Each structure stands twice: as C-alpha cells, then as structure tokens.
C-alpha cells in the first residue's frame, strides 16, 4: 500500500535529476521537508529553495524535461512538471542559503535530495510567525522532542 506510493512522479524526479546533473543547488524546505523527517501532517506542495534563482540552469533543467521556468512572477513558477513544486524566495529567520546547505540532510526520495533539518524548519516557521503555521510548529516541536528521547533510548 504505502510502498506503492512514490512521493515523486516520474516527471518530478526527472526534473530534480536534471537540476542535479547541472549542478543546481537547492534545498527541500517547509512542511514537505518536515514530513520527510517524521512530522505528522499534510501538504500540497514541495517547497524548493534555490541557491540562485538567476541561475539559467534552472530553466535549462525544466526545459530538458518539457517544462519551463517563469522568473518574473512573484514567486517564480516552475511549469510543465506537475503543479507541486513551489519556489521559495526567502526563508525567514535563516541567515543564508550557504549556511543552511552546509547542514542539510541527505534524503533518498528515489533521488537523493538535500533537506532542511527539522530544527531549522522550526526556526524559520517561528520567525515567519504565520497563523497557519501554529499547528505545524507544535507538531514539529513534538517530533523534535520525541526524536531526542528516542536517541536517548538508543544510547
């Protein structure tokens, strides 16, 4: 049942592979990143935070799989590869892409991607201070506490 559910469509995976092969650095962030790390909840999108939105390789990667990248919209749009990738332009509370990329975790989603760690998602969501994040923040906090307790158990 769950095993048959691939998180990414073939097209989505091909796009991420195209980014990877072109050396485009990005992070999976937001609620999708939290879900990956064990937070219970739901999301409709996979948020991507790119190192440089001006990198022409993003459009090239989209084009390579039949999609396109619109940069003049706010936020920029990735089209033609499904409708689940959202481009994040800023991450509240986080100093820089570089510093976060350095501490990102590597996750296998059928393709290896870099994911913002839970504690950093929490920092960002607290800084954003949005009403819609109130419950996810509680879920993230509970998961972090549980993971710490499990880690203590294992020692």
């Amino acid at each position, binding site marked *: 049942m769950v095993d048959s559910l691939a998180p990414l469509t073939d097209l989505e995976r091909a796009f991420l592979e195209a980014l990877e092969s072109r050396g485009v650095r990005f992070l999976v962030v937001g609620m999708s990143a939290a879900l990956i790390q064990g937070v219970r909840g739901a999301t*409709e999108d996979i948020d991507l935070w790119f190192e440089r939105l001006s990198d022409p390789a993003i459009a090239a990667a989209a084009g390579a799989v039949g999609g396109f990248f619109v940069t003049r919209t706010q936020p920029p749009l990735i089209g033609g590869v499904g409708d689940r990738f959202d481009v994040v332009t800023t991450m509240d509370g986080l100093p820089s892409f570089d510093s976060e990329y350095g501490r990102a975790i590597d996750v296998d989603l059928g393709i290896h991607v870099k994911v913002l760690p839970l504690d950093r998602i929490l920092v960002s969501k607290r800084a954003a201070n949005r009403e819609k994040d109130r419950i996810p923040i509680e879920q993230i906090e509970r998961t972090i506490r549980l993971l710490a307790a499990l880690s203590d158990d294992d020692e």
Partner: protein
Amino acid sequence: MDEEVVDEEGALHAELAALTPQQRAWTENQLVLRARATRLAARLHLDAGDVFHMLRNLARTPAERLSLGLLHGRLTRAAHRP
C-alpha cells in the same frame, strides 16, 4: 488484584497462542510499540496515542512519509472543495 493480572496475562497468552506465527509477530510488535509509546509519552508529557502514531510514522521511510503527507494534503483539499 494480582489474580486478575495473572488471569489477564493468561488470557492474552492463550489468545496469542491461537494466532498464526505471522499474526502473533504483528500483534507482539504492536504491543512493544504501544508500551514504548506509553513510556515515552509519560516522560515527555504527551498523549500516548499520539506518540504511538508518531512512532509508527517514524518507522516509515522518508519517501513513504512524504507520499502520505502529500496524499493527505490532496485529500484534504478535495474534501474542502465546494
């Protein structure tokens, strides 16, 4: 009181013994997970049922967790569509 506990344990053993090995393994795994959830919940001051579901979720692969979260998101959106 002690006799009641012994009776309950005896009844559980009898019930487990009647299961197939596969059913028994699944049931015993659930019992271990629930006991762990209860212990952790007490330590963290969280709801034991909630912790049980969190532990089950953590047993899934990252890809499975994302799949379920996206599916849940899509179903939630569909349910709220007028």
